[in-house]
């Protein structure tokens, strides 16, 4: 039966949903930028027409897009905004401060509506906003309802030529000529050959945009009936480049335009040459605007300063949109490649003695080449995920503007290194934290202008955002020249809230820890600026989750500097493999500052705390063997890894370092192994899991791990299979044995059966968790059900099986004596567990049934998986 047209339409809408949200995001970002740029022209007649035009068109486009997706509220709002913009474009109203504010609110609301639609939340109420926009549009001087203000196109006349400038275009040219720029007319003739070489009208447009501003661009036909394009540009360019461009059929038109332009710009004193058209007495050329800080303040209107802002370029069709998840898949594949290569290397090393030298040499060479290529591939894919941190920085402008609106502070926001590229995931995670920190700087750091004046500081507070990469790290700094962190107040606060006791002294070392404690906030009532759900504790967590480090430096009266160091590679790290007793761990190289050898004689112990002298400072030492209860092998000397923490250096004692290796980080997302000090797991080639140390969070005194416990599994639909009131009559179960009892699990939850191999034990885990195993690219915990059900532990035999069950993204392996049967059980035959059963067992049993004279006990999947939650709370 053919699909109805409605179905087809729904399908199509679903398919383009992703594109829709991405495009809305980009357009809204562009509007934000443009609005900030025109704000400088409030209450003047000199608003940049091109920007206004652009904003108008974007709202028009958004109206169309949201209309397609049937988001009526967004359509209404965009329509109203578009109307107001039209009036501004037609110069029937002047841009006022209220106008800009309303437009910015409108943009904000539009974003919220689209976001609400996406997350299926309630739509915001915009009645007030809509009436504000109406008020503005009603104020227009001309009430005519002329709807097409764009050049009325008369189809009967010849197509427009480059010389037919309209009022706005002429004005633009005039202003630019007055600023000392030249006027050029270029012509480009496209062809299939050029196109194959990558030279087309789009690339030409980009080239021209780089040297100046495109006033007008039109298609035209020449005498030979060839189609070509004319561009009118204001800017300046050297002869050399002009010569280069001729090769790509991009040439200067040298007709007698001068006369024509003389008529257009009668009052201007133009040179006698044919091209370029320029002023006789060139006024001083303006400074390049590229990295100049844009200053925001409400009180002083600066109509003479033109905001030097380059609006974001719309994605050109030379780009491809890629779903981030596809890139993740690619990264995963590369990760597997890395592991396999390491495995290959291990195996080869094993057979090295048996291989003749000549062959070995070739094998080795091929292996090296493979490693290089995999590395390149990995870098290549990572580069695809890279975006400029400028995306984040641009959002800042908006935030700053928002904040300075409400208070009278004057802020000078400076960006350094905005082209620094970082992984898109980092950008997304760090967006809110960075915005929060800038807000803090503005709210608590920068003083009011009067105060600053008294302190002989420039009236504008300076906030610098810097980003730079160094090696495989990216460093982001936020610095302000405000009053610095008030340590006294912080200490008082912290003591009052019992974050620290009266004895502890606060210095730069633990300052950050205190500020980032949950529940600590600098102002009693979070003001509208800072109260948004992101606190410094969340910032710290995000940084640490990304494997990074944050430090702070502050000086009273001078300012503060927050520095965040993040590893560029998320999924693949360079790590050191270290041993402690008979256990191996992986430690990310980034985290280690230095490794030193220590003689036990030089270790001082006091009250169970160990320390050594390192570079004339006291370095506390944490012994992994003690932390993880690993039996120590006696060693004379041992090694200590020096690690930088937010409050200073710390030493982590290990036995020795085995080697250095690239590791692929696999997240340990299961609560069973959600233990402080372990940040993930990896596999290093011999099939066994090696845990990755989270050196930032190793401590003898562990508060509950910061990682949030996952929400308990929704016991909704998956229980239906085992309830006796389901419509289905029978279900398939897989049977396994523990001792003399047979148990069953619904086969829908069983992913596979495996032999029991290579269980890596996890330190400090409950006894019934034997450890973790690697299965199908995933690290999962292995539960010894015998222990949980009160039976004694036995050795694994050849018949032992690991039953891997899986539900709602939770996967767990159950160690069983044997498992091999598939049976069909009639649901009506399932009885609830009898009263006499002890409470413990009751929870894990969902029912009992009889099958061929056998009693089969049916396992409650959810509660087995839920075991974790109750247990880790007891830790």
């Amino acid at each position: 039966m053919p699909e109805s047209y409605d179905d087809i339409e729904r399908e199509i809408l679903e398919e383009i949903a992703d594109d829709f949200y991405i495009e809305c995001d980009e357009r809204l970002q562009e509007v934000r930028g443009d609005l900030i740029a025109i704000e400088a022209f409030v209450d003047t007649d000199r608003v940049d027409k091109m920007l206004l035009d652009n904003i108008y068109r974007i709202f028009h486009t958004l109206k169309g897009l949201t209309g397609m997706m049937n988001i009526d509220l967004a359509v209404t709002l965009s329509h109203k905004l578009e109307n107001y913009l039209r009036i501004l474009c037609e110069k029937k109203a002047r841009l006022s401060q209220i106008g800009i504010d309303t437009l910015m609110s409108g943009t904000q609301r539009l974003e919220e509506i689209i976001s609400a639609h996406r997350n299926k939340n309630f739509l915001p109420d915009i009645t007030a906003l809509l009436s504000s926009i109406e008020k503005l549009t009603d104020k227009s001087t001309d009430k005519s309802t002329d709807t097409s203000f764009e050049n009325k196109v008369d189809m009967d006349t010849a197509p427009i030529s480059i010389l037919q400038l309209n009022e706005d275009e002429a004005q633009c040219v005039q202003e630019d000529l007055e600023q000392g720029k030249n006027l050029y007319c270029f012509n480009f003739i496209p062809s299939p050959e050029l196109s194959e070489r990558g030279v087309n009208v789009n690339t030409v447009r980009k080239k021209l945009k780089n040297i100046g501003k495109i006033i007008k661009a039109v298609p035209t036909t020449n005498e030979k009936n060839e189609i070509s394009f004319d561009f009118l540009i204001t800017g300046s360019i050297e002869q050399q480049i002009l010569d280069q461009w001729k090769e790509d059929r991009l040439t200067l038109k040298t007709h007698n335009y001068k006369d024509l332009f003389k008529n257009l710009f009668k009052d201007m004193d133009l040179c006698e040459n044919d091209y370029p058209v320029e002023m006789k007495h060139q006024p001083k050329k303006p400074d390049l605007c590229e990295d100049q800080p844009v200053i925001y303040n409400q009180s002083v209107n600066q109509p003479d300063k033109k905001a030097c802002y380059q609006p974001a370029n719309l994605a050109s069709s030379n780009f491809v949109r890629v779903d981030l998840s596809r890139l993740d898949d690619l990264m995963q594949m590369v990760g597997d490649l890395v592991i396999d290569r390491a495995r290959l290397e291990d195996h080869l090393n094993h057979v090295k003695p048996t291989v003749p030298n000549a062959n070995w040499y070739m094998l080795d060479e091929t292996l090296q080449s493979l490693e290089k290529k995999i590395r390149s591939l990995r870098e290549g894919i990572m580069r695809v995920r890279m975006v400029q941190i400028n995306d984040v920085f641009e959002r800042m402008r908006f935030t700053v503007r928002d904040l300075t609106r409400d208070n009278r502070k004057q802020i000078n926001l400076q960006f350094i290194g905005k082209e620094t590229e970082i992984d898109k995931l980092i950008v997304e995670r760090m967006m809110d934290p960075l915005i929060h920190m800038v807000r803090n700087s503005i709210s608590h750091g920068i003083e009011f202008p009067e105060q600053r004046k008294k302190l002989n500081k420039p009236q504008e507070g300076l906030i610098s955002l810097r980003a730079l990469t160094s090696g495989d790290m990216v460093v982001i700094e936020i610095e302000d020249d405000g009053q610095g962190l008030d340590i006294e107040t912080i200490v008082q606060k912290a003591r009052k809230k019992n974050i620290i006791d009266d004895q502890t002294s606060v210095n730069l070392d633990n300052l950050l820890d205190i500020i980032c404690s949950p529940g600590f906030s600098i102002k009693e009532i979070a003001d509208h600026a800072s109260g948004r759900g992101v606190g410094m504790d969340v910032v710290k967590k995000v940084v640490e989750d990304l494997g990074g480090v944050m430090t702070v430096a502050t000086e009273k009266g001078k300012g503060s500097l927050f520095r965040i160091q993040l590893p560029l590679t998320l999924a693949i790290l360079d790590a050191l493999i270290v041993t402690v007793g008979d256990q191996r761990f992986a430690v990310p190289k980034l985290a280690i500052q230095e490794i030193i050898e220590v003689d036990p004689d030089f270790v001082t112990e006091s009250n169970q705390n160990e320390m050594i002298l390192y570079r004339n400072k006291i370095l506390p030492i944490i012994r992994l063997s003690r932390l993880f209860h690993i039996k120590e092998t006696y060693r004379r000397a041992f090694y200590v890894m020096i690690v930088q923490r937010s409050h200073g250096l710390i030493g982590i004692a290990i036995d020795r370092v085995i080697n250095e290796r690239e590791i692929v980080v696999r997240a340990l997302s299961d609560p069973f192994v959600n233990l402080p000090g372990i940040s993930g797991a990896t596999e290093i080639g011999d099939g066994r899991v090696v845990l990755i140390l989270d050196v930032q969070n190793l401590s003898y005194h562990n508060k509950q791990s910061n990682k949030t416990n996952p929400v308990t599994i929704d016991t909704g639909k998956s229980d239906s299979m085992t309830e006796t009131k389901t419509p289905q009559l029978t279900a398939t179960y897989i049977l396994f044995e523990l001792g003399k009892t047979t148990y069953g699990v619904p086969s829908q939850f069983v992913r596979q059966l495996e032999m029991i191999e290579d269980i890596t034990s996890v330190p400090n885990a409950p006894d019934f968790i034997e450890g973790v195993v690697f299965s199908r690219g995933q690290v999962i915990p292995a539960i010894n059900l015998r222990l949980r059900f009160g039976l004694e532990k036995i050795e694994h035999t050849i018949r032992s099986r690991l039953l891997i069950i899986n539900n709602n993204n939770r996967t767990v392996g159950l160690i069983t004596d044997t498992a091999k049967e598939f049976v069909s059980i009639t649901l009506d035959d399932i009885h609830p567990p009898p009263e006499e059963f002890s409470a413990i067992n009751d929870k894990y049993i969902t029912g009992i049934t009889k099958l061929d004279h056998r009693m089969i006990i049916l396992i409650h999947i959810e509660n087995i998986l839920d075991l974790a939650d109750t247990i880790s709370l007891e830790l």
Partner: protein
Amino acid sequence: MKKILIVDDSPTMRRMIKASLRTLENVSFEEAENGLEAIERLTIGAIDLVTLDINMPDINGLEVLKFIKSHNSLNNIPIIVLSSRSDEQTCDIVLSAGVARFMNKPFDPHKLNVQVTNLLDNKINAQ
């Protein structure tokens, strides 16, 4: 193989148009995101049908239309104008240029599909 040129500055819209025409057999798509690029593609050749948006940067769709119609080599390619401007003036201007069809945005995918199919078939018959 018939080539359809989709001209629209919104990637989402271009995708939507492609998706609506997915069921057509023996068709391939080219995309242009502004009027200049559209004309360039048409010049390079072999386009059998154009869907054209009006609201585009630099040079709006109406000017593009005017240019296409004024050029001998280009003016017999069927054009479907898709526009969210539903005012009479625009409508008149467009139709006076002799485009094949004018459709409003948001458009009904099925209708677009039918129109394109018809136009392409007519072209075959006319040859």
